[in-house]
């Protein structure tokens, strides 16, 4: 469906050759839904078997068996980033929390995983989104480690693409991105995630290329 993308912690896995899934242990699948195709997604969901909407978290669909994992639907407005903004797109069937920062995402690769074409954002834009998103606690740490997972899959030119996108942001957002990278550099290692301690030099080099905001 046009513009729908997988945007969560599973992306580094999907970018590995053959979707090897060695980088990050994902707890759910995050799907970014452009508001323009919300109706079409809603219709398609009526045919999905094995998932049902969660009552307490109505934008989350939970599995009815252990063979599936949770699907988390997020609203986005492509090409119109409003960093740090969020609002609720109300709908009786598929309400969405719309994250303004998701607007930075651009379409990227579409790997074929066992016959299923999976639309992904460009890795530069996804790293940018995760480095601009303020979260707290465990989710914050996990998202930063997902950035590292993305960096580990970067092709030549991806880091340059991030720097180009970063250079035109507001100073507060550029500062936020750096603050989050420094936090990533100092994170303790955790099971099922890339080891920040093993890649601190690489993170340091990216910080150096970015320079400081004074």
């Amino acid at each position, binding site marked *: 469906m046009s513009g729908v993308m997988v945007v969560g912690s599973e992306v580094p896995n999907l970018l590995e050759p053959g979707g090897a899934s060695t980088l990050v242990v994902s707890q759910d699948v995050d799907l970014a839904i452009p508001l323009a195709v919300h109706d079409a997604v809603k219709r398609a969901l009526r045919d999905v078997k094995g998932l049902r*909407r969660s*009552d*307490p*978290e*109505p*934008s989350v669909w939970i599995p009815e068996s252990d063979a599936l994992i949770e699907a988390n639907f997020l609203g986005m407005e492509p090409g119109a980033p409003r*960093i*740090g*903004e*969020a*609002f*609720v797109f*109300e709908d*009786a069937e598929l*309400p*969405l*929390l719309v*994250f303004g920062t998701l607007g930075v995402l651009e379409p990227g690769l579409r790997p074929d995983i066992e016959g299923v074409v999976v639309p992904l954002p460009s890795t530069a834009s996804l790293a940018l989104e995760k480095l601009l998103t*303020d*979260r*707290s606690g465990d989710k914050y740490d996990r998202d930063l480690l997902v950035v590292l997972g993305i960096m580990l899959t970067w092709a030549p030119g991806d880091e340059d693409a991030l720097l180009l996108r970063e250079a035109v942001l507001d*100073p*507060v957002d550029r*500062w*936020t991105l*750096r*603050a989050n*990278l*420094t*936090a990533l*550099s*100092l994170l*303790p290692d955790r099971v099922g995630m890339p080891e920040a301690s093993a890649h*601190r*030099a690489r*993170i*340091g*080099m990216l*910080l*150096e290329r970015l*320079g*400081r*905001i*004074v």
Partner: protein
Amino acid sequence: MSLESLHRRARAVRSRHLVRQREFAQRNLAGGVWLALRYELAAAQAAFQITEDVARQLEHAGHVALEHGLRIDPPLHAYEVAESELAELPTVAQLTVRMDPTLLRAGYIVLVRFPQRVA
């Protein structure tokens, strides 16, 4: 179906962004010290605790304690040294490079930079 959980999360996102904007505005004031210290640590490949006497020797040799460490309480006297200098330097213990109590309360430390340091 209640949408309250979604509205609550939306408010939390906006609230965190407001806090971030405030932190940015104060980045060169007291609150900015923590990020400045994180920058210094992110640029360091290793950290070692040293004694006050060794710190004095470093200062006699021209090293200057990093400003941001001196702005916290208790002060952290942190000196940048080259990897080649480290071999000659008596250290107390190697520290994990992290913003944790062990490092922040170490009193006197040396930081060894990655070859390409953060600007």
